[in-house]
C-alpha cells in the first residue's frame, strides 16, 4: 500500500481566507481523490484529480471554491477558498492504488476549523 501524508494536519482559519492542503504519496499513482467529512457525517467525494488534466468535480462542488492542482504523479493540493464556518471539516486525500480493484488508501486528514 502507499504511504500518504497531508499538510497541515490541522488549522484554525478566519472567515474569508483560503487554505491550501497538500497531499504527498510515496509512490506514483494515477488517480487521487479529495474527500470531505463534515462533523458527524460520512465521507463525501469532492473531486478526482488526475495528473495532466483538469480535476473532475462532484455535484455540489465547484472549481472556484475548491481549486485542485496535480502537478505530478505523487502530489496534489486542494485549496478551500473564501472560507466560511460551514467549511469546517476533515479533508482527506486518497489514492487508487490497486489497478484491479478500487481499494483506495487514505491520508491522515486535515482538520479545518473556520471561525
Amino acid at each position, binding site marked *: 500500500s502507499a504511504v500518504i501524508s497531508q499538510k497541515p494536519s490541522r488549522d484554525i482559519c478566519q472567515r474569508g481566507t483560503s487554505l491550501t492542503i497538500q497531499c504527498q504519496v510515496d509512490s506514483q499513482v494515477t488517480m487521487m*481523490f479529495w474527500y470531505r467529512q463534515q462533523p458527524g457525517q*460520512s*465521507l463525501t*467525494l469532492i473531486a478526482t484529480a488526475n495528473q495532466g488534466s483538469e480535476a473532475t468535480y462532484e455535484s455540489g462542488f465547484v472549481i472556484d471554491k475548491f481549486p485542485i492542482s496535480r502537478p505530478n504523479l505523487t502530489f496534489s493540493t486542494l485549496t478551500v477558498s473564501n472560507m466560511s464556518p460551514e467549511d469546517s471539516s476533515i479533508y482527506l486525500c486518497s489514492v*487508487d492504488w490497486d489497478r484491479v480493484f478500487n481499494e483506495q488508501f487514505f491520508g*491522515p486528514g486535515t482538520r479545518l476549523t473556520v471561525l
Partner: protein
Amino acid sequence: DQQVKQNSPSLSVQEGRISILNCDYTNSMFDYFLWYKKYPAEGPTFLISISSIKDKNEDGRFTVFLNKSAKHLSLHIVPSQPGDSAVYFCAASASSRKLSFGAGTTVTVRA
C-alpha cells in the same frame, strides 16, 4: 441521495463476542464493496472488500457477506477485541472507481 446506508449509528459488544455491522445500498450498478475502519484523528484504513461476483470473503477475524438480491452486506468480526473499537464505514463503487460511503457505525468493544 444516500446510495449507501448504515442504519445503526452505534454498536456495543462484549470482548470475545461477535460484532455484526450492516450496510444497505440502492445503486444496482455497484460491483465492489469495501469496509474501512477509522480511529479518531486518523484517515480511514482499508479493512476488507468483496466483489459482486462473490457472496463471502474472509480475512482472519473479519468476514464480509454480500446479498445482491437484497442489496445488503454485512461485516462480521469474530472474536471482537478492544482494539476493534472504532468507526466502521461501508463503501461501494461502480466502474467509475469513485467510492460512495455510508454514514458509519461506531463500534465499542467492552472488556
